[in-house]
């Protein structure tokens, strides 16, 4: 039972609590020492001039002229504790995976791609940037005459960031370690299923390739350098005996140019410092510190960029150009071609989409220029399934195919004509097939916030054009997970997709058409998409390209045949290239070039570091 005194005492605790809470909040608010939380502006001695002391001695009168010691001071902002802003490159991104205490490539895509570990912590065999391979932990490669062996020449002066040398033992340990753990899904785990290796001295590894079904049968693999380029050897003295999926490698022992200072899960911020003992002495590494941090929501990121708080971020081009650049003249846009031009895919197992005429008509209904402009005012209609700069001329394309098969052409009248010619007649305003069934198709896309407005804009535009010629098109926007699930199982009519062919070797633009990936509708393909396409002739072309040497000019003809197959049957048709560009702050670091791909979520980031210089000398 409560007594009256107790009641009073209980009730008095309420104002007391309010008073204490308010006092705490006010107390915490009181000492505001810095203009912002992130950037503290303090005076810091950066450079001192030499002491100049001049003395003139004159007899008798003894006049002494003395120049005072002069110390030049420069105001430098300190950020993230005590890092000088003019030596710190700040990258703001959106961390996909919430991993801040593990620095390992073993879990592949589950690694946090925004911590800086992949960008500046690790070292690969080669860096592939701008169509060129740059040597890092390996110097060069050589194939034998028939492409069944490749010799990799290792770099011999590389060191781990704990001071120990990177040796051929580290390489061979890594190859065996990854293969021994292939069941755990580690990268390169299955490589030794079709590849053997042997060493030659301390700087050469010879890889030989064989048929998985018949290990005695040698097979060519002219693209082995493409995959081994991204190989990251592990430090044997660190990884030996460790479980690849549990070992945190913290602090990371790697051969890359920057060493981890701190990584914080609360603030989602990792700070890296340039190694004084970095082994590649000719490497340009302007920033002493690189900070990878989580970017705020777009409205607030805009304010951060206006204030120059970040050097590179993921703000979309429209906000950057309209809201940031007018207010901060130091900001410029870094642009590069879409590495994976967007395509419209057909489920060719579903009638009447198995008819090339239907697919041709669908292609003619796409107003690519208008749709692309929803995302990028400078967008051009897509033509090739690999990145290119406006001119679609390529050794892998016959220009006649572009013209003959209306690649990238918008012509609704011709679409109607194509349907008429193929027997899809207009009955009571509706276009019907030979059985009298109206033509009706859905186009599956996903949340526009993921890939931009054009992704959901083009189906709507197609629907409007299709309605004019009696065809029903239903735009179908689904959740991303549902999109991929439907894509894999063939639960769609048409869908938005992207194809990432390489301009020098566009195999990836065709390999998914091979019938080895074919599965009946309802069964997951395990390869991202289900096109319901099977053709032995196409398989043969793909296999020829797979086994051929991409450096061999003769392979261009096979590639041309593949392009012809795709365009003449409209196996998939181009849409547009998405805008690729991010705002760059030139206030502290400049020299960034367009077309450089500052992909700060992957190793390509290193390609960008090659160009930038400090603005404030």
């Amino acid at each position: 039972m409560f007594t009256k005194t107790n009641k009073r005492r209980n009730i008095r605790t309420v104002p007391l609590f309010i008073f204490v809470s308010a006092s705490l909040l006010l107390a915490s608010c009181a000492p505001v020492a810095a203009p912002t939380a992130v950037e503290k502006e303090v005076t810091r001695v950066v450079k001192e001039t030499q002491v100049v002391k001049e003395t003139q001695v004159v007899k008798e009168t003894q006049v002494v002229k003395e120049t005072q010691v002069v110390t030049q001071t420069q105001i430098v902002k300190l950020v993230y504790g005590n890092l000088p802003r003019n030596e710190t490159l700040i990258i703001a991104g959106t961390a996909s995976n919430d991993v801040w205490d593990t620095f390992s490539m073993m879990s592949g895509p589950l690694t946090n791609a925004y911590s800086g570990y992949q960008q500046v912590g690790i070292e690969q065999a080669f860096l592939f940037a701008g169509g060129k391979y740059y040597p890092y932990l390996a110097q060069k490669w050589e194939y034998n005459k028939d492409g069944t062996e490749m010799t990799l020449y290792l770099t011999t002066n590389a060191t781990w960031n704990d001071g120990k040398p990177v040796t051929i033992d580290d390489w061979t340990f890594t190859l065996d370690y990854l293969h021994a753990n292939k069941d755990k899904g580690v990268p390169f785990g299955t490589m030794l299923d079709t590849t053997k290796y042997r060493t030659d001295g301390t700087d050469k590894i010879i890889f030989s390739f064989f048929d998985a079904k018949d290990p005695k049968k040698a097979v060519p693999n002219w693209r082995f350098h493409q995959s081994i380029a991204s190989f990251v050897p592990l430090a044997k003295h660190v990884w030996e005996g460790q479980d690849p999926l549990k070992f945190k490698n913290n602090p990371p022992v790697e051969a890359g140019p920057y060493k981890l200072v701190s990584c914080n899960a609360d603030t989602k911020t990792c700070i890296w410092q340039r190694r004084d003992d970095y082994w590649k002495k000719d490497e340009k590494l302007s920033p002493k510190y690189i900070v990878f941090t989580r970017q705020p929501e777009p409205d607030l990121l805009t304010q951060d960029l206006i204030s120059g708080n970040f050097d590179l971020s993921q703000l979309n081009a429209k906000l950057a150009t309209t809201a940031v650049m007018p207010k901060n003249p130091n900001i410029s846009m870094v642009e590069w071609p879409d590495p994976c031009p967007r395509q419209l895919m057909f489920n060719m197992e579903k009638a009447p989409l198995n008819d090339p005429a239907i697919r041709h008509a669908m292609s003619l209904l796409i107003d690519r220029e208008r749709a692309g402009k929803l995302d990028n005012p400078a967008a051009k209609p897509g033509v090739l399934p690999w990145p290119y700069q406006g001119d679609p001329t390529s050794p892998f394309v016959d220009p006649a195919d572009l013209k003959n098969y209306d690649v990238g052409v918008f012509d609704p009248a011709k679409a109607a004509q194509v349907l008429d010619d193929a027997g899809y007649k207009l009955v009571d305003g509706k276009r019907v097939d030979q059985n009298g069934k109206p033509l009706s198709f859905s186009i599956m896309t996903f949340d526009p916030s993921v890939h931009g407005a054009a992704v959901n804009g083009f189906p709507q535009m197609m629907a409007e054009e299709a309605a004019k010629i009696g065809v029903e098109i239903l735009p179908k926007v689904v959740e991303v997970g549902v999109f991929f699930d439907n894509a894999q199982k063939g639960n769609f009519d048409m869908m938005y997709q992207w194809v990432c062919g390489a301009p020098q070797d566009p195999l990836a633009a065709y390999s998914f058409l091979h019938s080895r990936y074919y599965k009946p509708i309802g069964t997951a393909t395990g390869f991202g998409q289900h096109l319901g396409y099977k053709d032995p002739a196409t398989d043969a072309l793909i296999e020829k390209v797979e086994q051929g040497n991409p450096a061999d000019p003769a392979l261009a003809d096979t590639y041309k045949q593949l392009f012809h197959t795709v365009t003449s049957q409209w196996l998939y048709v181009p849409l547009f290239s998405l805008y690729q560009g991010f705002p760059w702050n030139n206030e502290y670091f400049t020299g960034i070039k367009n077309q450089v791909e500052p992909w700060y979520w992957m190793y390509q980031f290193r390609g960008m570091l090659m160009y930038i210089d400090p603005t404030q000398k």
Partner: protein
Amino acid sequence: MDSFPLRQKRSSSQNLSALQARLQPYLPTAKYILKRIGIYFLTVLGAVTLAFIFFHLMPGDPLSIVFSQLEKTNLGRVTGGAEVAEAYKRLLGLDQPLPVQYLLFLRNVLIGGFDLGPSFVAFPTSTRDVIFRQLPWTIGYFTSAMLIAWLIGTTIGALLGWLRRIGLTSVAVGIATLLNITPVYIIAIAAIIFFGYHLHWLPTGQPYDPGLTPNWGDIEFIKNVLRHAIMPIASVVLVWGASFSLGMRSLMISVLGEDYLSYAKAKGLTPFMILRDYAFRNALLPQVTALGIALGNTINGVLILEAIFVVPGVGGLFVRAMAIHDFNVMQGVVLLSTVAVLTLSLIVDLLLPFLDPRIRRSND
């Protein structure tokens, strides 16, 4: 000697009766408590089971998707996407039939110390660790904000109700109504732009300055954390405080019409005593219930505020887990959230008999 057992028997019988008589007043309360606890456990089990089923009914197999897409684009150095996805399914326990997964889930939660296996979103950190890493921030920011909002809102609401005939209160009610209908993110963004970017008075986000090393024994670090917490907490306090004050004002106005207040006035009690002991106490009960529910919901985090202020809370974790169908984390957060809401409701239910004698005396 013979009479002793008789005396003892009589004595135990008397003791039992005496004990029963002594316990009699507490029996309704005990029945009430047991019933509430029983309902609590059943509800937890039901909610967790439903969540498990619904999550696993979600279409899509993102594990396969993540790996196969990366294989396709040659990113992430993945080869054999389908095989890798299968390996991770085994690791995450997703290769078992659904009923087995459910039983394993219950076993791991109940006798495995909340062991929900590895997370996918923060691999290889365990689900338990990743949730408990984020939880203190959510509680520290939003649960404390809700408590402050309730205390301030309830006090102001009681005064607004009590002083309802004074013209100035209508201004306060207008302001409270405006705050109540304003989305909290608008207030948050406006506060950040004004106090953070323009005036530079307060930090614009993050739980503390990114350059700091967490040290809860360091007063400077704690002050830094508190400075970062001011705007998120103030945003919640403004909006929810307004909501609580309007609710309390209505409750007060309804109570002020009761006869017992006229009786108290007739007895000659001072207005302050009538406010404190009669009106406020009676109006408080529904507010306490509302607080219990609101507090439980803060475990989910105020998602939008977590995103705006870059707070590493449970809400943001749940959203990321949803995006890649990280069942372990999703189930963990839902379990925690359900238990929090239900536990706080239970606590409120158990407190009610002590706050309201009518419940204490009731058989139901």
